[in-house]
């Protein structure tokens, strides 16, 4: 084989390897949220049941970059068998926030106590068809306006955080979180 042909063959294979590497890179990055075995959802699965807020177990490693000034509870929701309602009463003084994220970690809504209406945060999580049938039923009797969200995946997390202003406020912050509700909607 001449020197030129050998170089050509090498270039061909090198280019081929780069193309394969590029495709693997893109697929790998895009697939990571779906494949990561120890993502937040998996790690939180021992906190509590489905469709209820649960506090972290007393023992167990803290997630990285945890702010010790936050108390946190998490609801693993599942809307595949019907809507799930999340509600919280707020006092307008203490910071309370909620992140709504899908099974793959995509945040699809977030709010703080400043978004509360008349001292209350309520959100209904439901599949698109459940929301449609709700709205059809309501079209007849006027209906009430509330925050309605369709998660990108049927399961996911609602993460609620309460700020502990000072160490003496920790028990009160925990109590504020205990009052939160995440439950299958009874209609």
């Amino acid at each position, binding site marked *: 084989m001449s020197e030129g042909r050998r170089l050509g*063959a090498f270039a061909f*294979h090198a280019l081929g390897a780069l193309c*394969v590497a590029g495709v693997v890179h893109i697929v790998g990055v*895009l697939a990571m949220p779906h494949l990561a075995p120890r*993502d937040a959802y998996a790690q939180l699965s021992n906190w509590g049941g489905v469709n209820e807020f649960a506090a972290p177990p007393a023992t167990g490693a*803290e997630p*990285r970059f945890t702010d010790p000034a936050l108390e946190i509870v998490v609801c693993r929701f599942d809307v595949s068998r019907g809507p799930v309602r999340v509600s919280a009463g707020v006092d307008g003084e203490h910071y309370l926030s909620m992140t709504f994220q899908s099974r793959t*970690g*995509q945040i699809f809504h977030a709010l703080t106590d400043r978004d509360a209406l008349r001292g209350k945060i309520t959100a209904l999580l439901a599949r698109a068809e459940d929301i449609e049938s709700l709205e059809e039923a309501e079209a007849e009797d006027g209906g009430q306006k509330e925050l309605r969200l369709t998660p990108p995946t049927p399961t996911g997390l609602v993460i609620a955080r309460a*700020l502990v202003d000072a160490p003496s406020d920790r028990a009160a912050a925990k109590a504020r979180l205990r009052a939160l509700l995440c439950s299958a909607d009874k209609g």
Partner: protein
Amino acid sequence: MATFLKLLATAVIGVGLGLASVYVSISPDAGFAAVASGAWTTSPRRGAMDADPYARASVARYADLPIATAEGLSFLTRRDDAGEALDARCDYRLVGKPMATRAWTVTLLSADGGVAHTEDTRRNFTSREILHAEDGGFEIAVATQARPGNWLAAPRSGAFELMLRLYDTSIGANSGAIAAAGLPKITKGQCR
């Protein structure tokens, strides 16, 4: 046969390179558009509803629960304002002024973002509990040895990180707004 083996080798090398590049690019704070101000860096995209694929992959891999930009902003630093790594052998002063936020916290973390083991049980300060100057400014001493005033204990040795969180902030998640936000300055004092 030789051709087949060559193609197979090409494919294997390609897959290997691809996986290695995924591993390298999904760093703990991956995500496009990290924004820096002084020593502080934030990756607001990690908490954005339209987070980029690298940020989402990193969040999944490291099991993070990022706060959304609607809830607040989260800044991290491993360096002082002069760009030198935070080192437990040195004392640091964190000097700040009031920021456009409802509440903030400063937390000391170990070099890998976990709980730092220090002489003191205090790991953080919140804006509500800290001792303020008359003009609303504040100063936190970060040192291994106890200090009067606001003192955050550094670990006995090694590197550490500082995290600044702004909750319910009106500071926008863009570089202009963050540069103008007046985040606390970190200066190094004496070293042993």
